């Protein structure tokens, strides 16, 4: 049974759909990479998975999470009491902007300790030693000093590791990492991703990694979900998508990625990402697509099963 399964997730603001019919599932121990350009709804999807979206947004669909003893619950229809047992304890999340996600007026140690207190009531000494070991696990040195520091006293890399330590404090089985390394320099980025990979194997963590860096996705992910303007373009096994992209958008992304690797000048996609308030009818990618057909402008493309583990949403996929 999959650890988490998303069925037809749609998020809309009034009548404007922001995310539409997103489907995926992640098995225990797997890594799913969600890729796409800025503004395609990746972060929104992550927040939907924890049901922490503002009330102004309406959410439809089901998110099934497999809790212990083979029982599963629907995160989107569960009450706050049940969600409290899921958030932080079963699913941890690292936000895109680590500094903004840390409370500026509460010491780092206390912020971890608050999460530990939710998980179980333990005495102060046990809690403190658990915090120190968490800080060490995420690769922070001088843990006793860091325990008493405020977030603004840490460097960008340390803040990112602190956010990870807090996300891991509740011993979650699933970790959602929303572009965790985007604000770091390339060396810190590499170190951080290595750490994530090591942790994943050490504590058998299931990972949903949001990224716009295909290198990251190819290096870590077993599966990929390619989003474009709130719609799924392609979903499937990483190797399949890398070797045989079916959606023209995925193909364009891969071409640019390949050009950078070979030090060539990449050919940018014509046009711009559509605004979510006034998206084009039919397939949202059709105004920029070189394989466009008359049907593309009329209705949303259907799901096409390519190999049982590789799907695309396109009228005219690349065979």
């Amino acid at each position, binding site marked *: 049974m999959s650890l988490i399964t998303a069925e037809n997730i749609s998020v809309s603001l009034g009548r404007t759909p922001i995310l539409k019919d997103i489907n995926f599932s992640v098995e225990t121990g797997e890594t799913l990479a969600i890729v796409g350009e800025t503004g395609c709804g990746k972060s929104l999807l992550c927040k939907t998975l924890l049901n922490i979206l503002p009330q102004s947004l309406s959410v439809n669909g089901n998110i099934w999470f497999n809790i212990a003893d083979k029982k599963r619950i629907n995160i989107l229809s569960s009450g706050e009491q049940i969600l409290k047992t899921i958030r932080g304890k079963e699913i941890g999340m690292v936000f895109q*902007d680590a500094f903004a996600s840390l409370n500026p007026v509460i010491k780092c140690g206390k912020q971890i300790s*608050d999460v530990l207190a*939710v998980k179980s009531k333990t005495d102060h000494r046990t809690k403190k030693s658990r915090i120190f070991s968490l800080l060490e696990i995420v690769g922070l040195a001088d843990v006793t000093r860091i325990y008493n520091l405020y977030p603004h006293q840490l460097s960008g890399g340390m803040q990112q590791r602190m956010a990870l330590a807090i996300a891991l404090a509740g011993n979650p089985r699933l970790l959602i990492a929303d572009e965790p390394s985007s604000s770091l320099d390339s060396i810190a980025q590499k170190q951080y991703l290595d750490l994530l990979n090591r942790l994943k194997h050490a504590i058998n963590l299931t990972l949903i990694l949001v990224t716009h860096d295909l290198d990251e996705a190819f290096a870590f992910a077993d599966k990929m979900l390619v989003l474009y303007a709130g719609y799924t373009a392609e979903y499937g096994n990483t190797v399949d998508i890398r070797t045989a992209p079916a959606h023209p958008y995925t193909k364009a992304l891969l071409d640019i990625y390949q050009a950078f690797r070979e030090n060539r000048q990449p050919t940018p996609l014509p046009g711009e990402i559509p605004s979510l308030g006034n998206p084009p009818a039919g397939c949202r990618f059709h105004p920029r697509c070189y394989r466009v057909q008359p049907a593309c402008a009329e209705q949303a493309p259907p799901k096409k099963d390519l190999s049982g583990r590789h799907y695309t949403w396109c009228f005219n996929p690349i065979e």
Partner: protein
Amino acid sequence: MVSYVIKRIAESIPTIIIGITLTFLVIHLSPGDPGSRFMDPSQPSEYREILQNRFGLNDALHIQYIKWLKQVLFHFDFGNSFYNGKPASGMVFSALRPTMLLAICSLIFALIVGIFLGIIAAVYRDALPDRILTAKMMFFFSTPSFWLGIMLLGIFSIKLGWFPASHLTSLYHDQLNWSGRFADYVHHLILPVITLGLPLSATFYRYIRTGMIEALESEYILASRARGLSVSKLLFHYSLKNSLIPLISVLGITIPALLSGALVVEVIFSLPGLGRTMVSAVFSRDYPIILAASTLAFVTVIVGNLLADVIYSMVDPRIRIKTQGVL
């Protein structure tokens, strides 16, 4: 932190001297003189000279000023009241106690009401409770305390007779035991505290509401929700601490308003405080009392501001580091 406080105190001494110098000048240059207030118009003018000499008012203004300043700075002596001959500093200090009692009680009342209602309004943002509270608080925000005081006095004291209309204690106060005296104080203070505290709570309410809304929409609160923290923890610990920061910064500028408000409220409710002492001193041209009272008001305002700054740096760790760096 200690060096910061010492530096701020040292910096405030010239401010106090400038303030009391201005007060000295304004009082002495304003028309009317204390001597003539003691005189019957039919008495010969020599009597007036004698009185002026006794009060030291016949010297040139700058001589009077230097004499007075020396006395104040080196002996902490503000002279004696023209009326009853008692030391001005002693009279003013004893009048300060009821004023401080009123001001501190009103501040606590305003903080409790403002913070509590501000949190409720932020949680129910744009819904009915928020709209009702914001409308009510705007009303109190724009209400002058003298009007509110007279209304409360008229309704709860004169019409309903629930609370006393004047004074801080009852006539039989000294015969009461400890708890009885406390209850007597509370009974007398309720109306003055509401009069002074309610408009102030409206100011605090606005700051807390805005601060809480900003905090509740922030990424760190969303992240804390994602960590599974309880609603009470999110509201009263994670959001409130952040939204207190702007409130503390207004606290410093609220203290002068609180003191000047206290003067009005004391006059309305006939409380034996600094305000009533000052007003009667102004009417009777009792210079030593006016100067001692205004010096005390200057000091109170400056100490209040300093306290607000210190609390501010205690709540916001980001400021603390900056002050350490600068000093």
